[in-house]
């Protein structure tokens, strides 16, 4: 399979998405079949590409002499693409049901499908500039999704999201160009800066790294730059679930991973002040995210803050710049995607069925929506890190990577990891307890109209729960697939 197939996989959803408003479906059924067909075709195609044709390349265009738009399928991108291709069909199915009583659905599903292609573009890009291109397009394609229901609050969230993302993207761009002008290569098959780094311009390269780290950190919801994630919770749930728990934020973390392992190699970063600073930032975000989540009463905002902290888990793992750090980060990227999207789907189901958005209103919901809250319990236990489930594995991998690295900031991260585990239990299990054990003077008055969501919603939920449990017990195949990424990131190994 030569390079063209990569282009097809990326362009299929984008073109499909663009055509949707033009084709102007009236019947709901027709639109659903069309969108589902495109999404499933793309994910199947992507999965075949990841597993089958590793290493195929495609130079799309030589933009300038030193920069070109090129795609390559390597294991590191493949994992991100795997996550996205699994979750996108599920959330599309979910979105069909959720968006039933929204208007302007053609436009919504148009941009929704386009974001799929663009996220695949981020995954398969072969150098930082191509990734920057898709990174910016992702902002533009997700913006209309956030401001979809046109309320005042949605507009404010949209503007805030736009400002943060554009600022981040430009800062990252400046960092990239700084590296490029001083001899570093942005290609992902050229590991590290090699000869470009001398004692004189080391400080310069550190500065460039910080620009890129905080630039991409905006989308990875790093502490000072995370403001947009909770406010973006106002968007419809499929958007917050898929994009703000999986696609958009993960592309930020993925980008940081690319920068740490492919542009700056491990021995440049290990032990440098820059790494310490970044580690401390990630550690602080972990704690900050969980504490804010515990404080927040709005259901989706609480999950958004939990995403903020979980993303910094992955950042922390990547920043350790050790082989085990890389595998741990990728593992948590996969598992957190699964867990968080399940939690958001349950939140969405609750809002869709009963219109409740606040955590305090969930007394006794387990009886009314047994399947959803069953999945919610499994997912929260996984997120808290109870052993047989997948959350424990990735937390375990990150912690042992940190212990292995052994520096002071690594221990700080470990402490943050543990504290956040406790707070995760705090803000998730209280919901479970309140849902299952409403207490004795409770008569179910507030649940008269609430019924369990229909098949469109429960099927994705159950599949996710099954995935969480199965991957928790039998992660062998996945971990071996992930460790494949080591060979590209650490040629020496």
């Amino acid at each position: 399979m030569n390079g063209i197939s990569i282009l097809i996989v990326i362009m299929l959803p984008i073109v499909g998405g663009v055509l949707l408003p033009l084709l102007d479906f009236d019947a709901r059924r027709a639109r659903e079949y069309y969108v589902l067909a495109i999404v499933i075709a793309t994910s199947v195609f992507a999965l075949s590409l990841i597993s089958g044709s590793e290493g195929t390349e495609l130079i799309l265009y030589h933009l300038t002499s030193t920069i070109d738009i090129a795609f390559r399928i390597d294991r590191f991108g493949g994992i991100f693409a795997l996550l996205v291709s699994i979750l996108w069909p599920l959330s599309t199915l979910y979105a069909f049901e959720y968006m039933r009583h929204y208007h302007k659905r053609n436009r919504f599903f148009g941009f929704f499908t386009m974001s799929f292609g663009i996220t695949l573009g981020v995954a398969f890009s072969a150098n930082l500039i191509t990734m920057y291109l898709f990174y910016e397009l992702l902002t533009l394609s997700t913006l209309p999704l956030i401001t979809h229901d046109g309320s005042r609050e949605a507009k404010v969230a949209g503007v805030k999201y736009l400002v943060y993302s554009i600022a981040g993207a430009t800062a990252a761009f400046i960092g990239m160009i700084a590296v490029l002008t001083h001899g570093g290569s942005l290609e992902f098959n050229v590991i590290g800066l090699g000869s470009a780094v001398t004692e004189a311009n080391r400080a310069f390269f550190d500065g460039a790294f910080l620009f890129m780290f905080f630039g991409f950190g905006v989308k990875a919801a790093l502490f000072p730059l995370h403001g947009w994630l909770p406010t973006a919770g106002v968007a419809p749930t499929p958007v917050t679930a898929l994009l703000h728990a999986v696609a958009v934020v993960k592309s930020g973390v993925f980008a940081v991973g690319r920068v740490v392992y492919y542009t700056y190699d491990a021995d440049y970063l290990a032990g440098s002040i820059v790494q310490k600073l970044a580690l401390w930032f990630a550690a602080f975000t972990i704690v900050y995210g969980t504490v804010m989540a515990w404080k927040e009463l709005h259901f989706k905002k609480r999950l958004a803050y939990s995403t903020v902290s979980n993303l910094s888990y992955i950042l922390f793992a990547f920043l350790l710049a050790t082989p085990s750090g890389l595998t741990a980060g990728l593992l948590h990227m996969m598992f957190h995607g699964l867990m968080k999207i399940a939690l958001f789907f349950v939140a969405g189901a609750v809002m869709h069925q009963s219109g409740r958005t606040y955590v305090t209103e969930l007394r006794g919901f387990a009886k009314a929506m047994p399947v959803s809250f069953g999945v919610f319990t499994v997912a929260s236990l996984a997120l808290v890190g109870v052993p047989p489930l997948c959350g424990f594995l990735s937390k375990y991998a990150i912690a042992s990577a940190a212990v292995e690295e052994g520096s002071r900031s690594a221990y700080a991260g470990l402490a943050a990891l543990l504290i956040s585990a406790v707070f995760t239990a705090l803000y998730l299990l209280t919901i479970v307890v309140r849902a299952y054990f409403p207490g004795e003077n409770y008569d179910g008055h507030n649940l008269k109209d609430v019924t369990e969501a229909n098949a469109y919603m429960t099927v994705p939920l159950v599949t996710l729960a099954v995935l969480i449990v199965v991957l928790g017990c039998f992660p062998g195949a996945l971990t071996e697939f992930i460790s494949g990424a080591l060979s590209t990131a650490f040629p020496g190994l």
Partner: protein
Amino acid sequence: MSLIPNIPAFSIILLMLCGIVCLVLPARWARHLADCAIALACAMSAVLLVAFMRGQEVFTYSMGEIGAPFGNELRAGPLEAAVATLFSVVTLLSILGGRAHLRADIGKKKVNLYYISVLFLLCSMLALVYTNDLFTAYVFVEINTITACGIVMSKEDGYTLAASMRYFIMSLIGSGLFLIAVSILYALTGHLLMSNIQEELAALYAQGQYRAPLQVAIALMGVGLSLKSALWPFSSWLPDAHSSASASSSAMLSGLVLKSFIFLLVKVFYRVVGVDIIRSHAILDLLLVFGILGMIMGSVNALFERDLKRMLAYSSIGQIGYIFCGIGLGTIAGVAAGIVQVAVHACTKAMLFCAAGGLMDASGGSKKFKDLEGAGRRDTYAGVAFIVGTLSMIGIPFFGGFITKLSLVTASVEVGGWRSTLAILAIIVSTILTAIYYINVTAIIFRGEEKTPTRASEKLREEWKKQMRLDTEYEFAIVLFIILNLAIGLQSDRLMDVIRAGLAVFG
């Protein structure tokens, strides 16, 4: 002896002659003559550019048999050829793009006067690009000013008259300062030809003689020309002038007129004063700071604007700030970044103004945002143009704007020190602000109600089209503008090579 060296003189004199002849022709003939003249000018400068890319070396063309210090002289290098081609192409497209509006805005009888002004505008811009003599530059600066005001005034409603009065006065202050600077330089060196002045000034600078007049002359030149090219503190006249004029005039004003003075400023800095003197002078830092302020303040004002064309005008101030930030960095890469932005902004902004014209037609001639809802659907060409404009302004690869951002960031990264931090911060802030207000506009023009009766919307668009007689020229111009923007985005390497080659041999 090939005809290539004659191209600059030919194109200028040709435009002059056609301008004069248009006085006697009736409107229809004047329109055809103007189109052909400008098209011919495009062709000639394109031939010159191709010749330069094929290895033609820089030449100076003496007007009359005695050249150098005694007669006038034109000098053409790859950079001048590129800029000249850009100017003539954008002028041609602007006229085509704004044709529909010309009929509406300008009385039937005065159309040929409008075309005379356009022809002389292009002639003066080409002369400014090519000339190697300061006083010829002053003369053609005056022609430029008068014709620019001419095309603003031609719309003859209250707004344009007041706007052109303010524009005229501010420009004349600028050219007064320019003239006094030229006379001081003449007093110091005795020459009017740029290359000779440079030698004399280098000698004077070495001996340390007349240091104060030299500094003052450079400062006056800088302030005068930046005043004419609407650098931020002096740009209060621009929004009224560019927004009230008709579509093609504002396209030409925003896209070209400001740029010709910037190009003259670069020529004065690097050919008259010489690289080393200018680098030691504080004017570069002043231009950098004002450029950065312009980038931010221009975008901030554009953010709060509720009128489409005024918003585009304020965004021009921002982009001009971008160019001055490039020039103010002082390095060759900085100037190259500035000139790339000249090229990209010329075609993007001209496209947007023509598209704005189209949008206004599609929503009953009002410029206010609240009336423009859904105009992008009704006039799909304008809608696509705004999408391309937004993507280019944000700096998405494949579009022109990416190249400017790329080159400016490269330049500011290499400069280092407080200049680079200031420039980088300004780039971040201005990209954010530009993104916000451009996306806001694009959202507004594509908002509109869900197309409930699909068939009805088709009828709506047909009806608009009939009423405004949107002819194919407008659509042809918009398509060509988009292709131009994409071409720069895709073929940026060639453009950068031409510019760098031009700058190398510019001194």
